């Protein structure tokens, strides 16, 4: 069977239905008249010859129907008829139609919504550099019955120096703090991070900058505001850059405003071997650091591989 000829005959059938019908009429009439002519030549009377030609041909309408079928036209015609019938039936019972349409709309809508969520959280890669290789490291100490707690700042520094399994490490802690100035005191959610955080989540600040690596060792505290917070508190005023803010009783300098991650402030944290790390260590060891690890990554659509690093006593 050749596709080309089929398509041509379907096209002819659909485009020139009227023409095809009249062609078919002409062809069948020619047949009967030619036969009648032959009969007349054999001496049959004109009227009688036509009558016999018609009888011997058999049912003309049936033959036509079979011709249409042979061309594959009737499939399309039946389809169109069914469609028209369906529309009429639906129009006749508007209540049923409305419920059916509503059901379909809700079903499709729900599916689309769920797909969007699944697509955004599970299927799409992280919007960061090599997101599929990003993992969260926890510490467990089975002797003390601790599982999945955040590492201490000292551990972090050791890992960063000595680990060969990871390209780079950063540390973060999720929690809330109280801003007492400027303006009314307010409790806000935020992340305390090491200064190389920006290397992982490559998105650029809307205004200002993120942390510089060398700022990790300094005495100053720096803050990057979340976009929403910046809009709400400072009405999106870019001149807040360089101004100070007081968080948990400590002075911070605002250096930038970011769109991501969601609505959190980024706060500088400086784990180092001289003093500064002490605070981070004690804080990071708290539960907040642990659950926040998972939460922060879910928030940024991570494929979370859970590494549990067993910490030996004295290590």
């Amino acid at each position, binding site marked *: 069977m050749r596709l080309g000829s*089929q398509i041509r*005959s379907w096209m002819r059938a659909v485009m020139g239905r009227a023409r095809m019908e009249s062609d078919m009429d002409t*062809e069948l009439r*020619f047949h009967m008249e*030619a036969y009648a002519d032959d009969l007349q030549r054999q001496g049959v009377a004109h009227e009688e010859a036509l009558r016999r030609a018609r009888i011997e*041909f*058999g049912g003309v309408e049936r*033959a036509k129907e079979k*011709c249409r079928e*042979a061309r594959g036209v009737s499939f399309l015609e039946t389809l169109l008829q069914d469609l028209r019938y369906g529309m009429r039936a639906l129009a006749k019972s508007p209540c049923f139609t409305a419920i059916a349409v509503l059901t379909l709309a809700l079903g499709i809508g729900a599916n689309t919504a769920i797909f969007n969520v699944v697509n955004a959280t599970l299927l799409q890669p992280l919007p960061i550099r090599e997101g599929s290789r990003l993992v969260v490291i926890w510490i467990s100490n089975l002797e003390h019955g601790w599982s999945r707690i955040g590492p201490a700042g000292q551990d972090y520094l050791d890992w960063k120096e000595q680990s060969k399994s990871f390209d780079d490490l950063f540390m973060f802690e999720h929690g809330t703090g109280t801003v007492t100035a400027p303006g009314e005191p307010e409790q806000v959610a935020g992340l305390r991070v090491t200064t190389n955080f920006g290397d992982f989540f490559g998105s650029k600040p809307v205004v200002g900058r993120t942390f510089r690596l060398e700022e990790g060792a300094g005495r100053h505290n720096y803050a990057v505001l979340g976009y929403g917070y910046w809009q709400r508190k400072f009405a999106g005023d870019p001149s807040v850059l360089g101004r100070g803010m007081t968080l948990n009783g400590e002075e911070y300098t605002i250096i930038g405003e970011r769109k991501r991650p969601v609505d959190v402030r980024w706060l500088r944290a400086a784990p180092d071997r001289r003093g500064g790390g002490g605070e981070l260590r004690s804080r990071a060891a708290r539960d907040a650091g642990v659950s926040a690890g998972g939460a922060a990554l879910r928030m940024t659509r991570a494929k979370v591989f859970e590494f549990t690093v067993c910490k030996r006593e004295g290590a």
Partner: protein
Amino acid sequence: MDKQLELLQGTLDMLILKAASLGPLHGYGILLRIQQISKDRLEIQQGSLYPALYRLEHQGWITSEWGESENKRKAKYYQLTMAGKRRLLTETENWNRMAEVIAGILGTKPEEV
């Protein structure tokens, strides 16, 4: 005239292809040619000819063209395509093999089994 044989199912297509292979013919001409070659021993329902022609054209074995008949009437002429010629060869071969096998079976005598 002997009693006419009824056409075996599925054989009309083959006969049409054969008739059209001998030169372009209109539907009525194809009918006449088959009857002439078969010496009127086959009974062909005239109305069944056209669905078969349309089917063969749809499948691309034959093509049609409007022309003028011997008595100056508008008539549709059919002729074989290249694919139709190949088809006729295969069908003929299959038919001959089938006929041979059937004849062999029907001609079997008890001592040959």
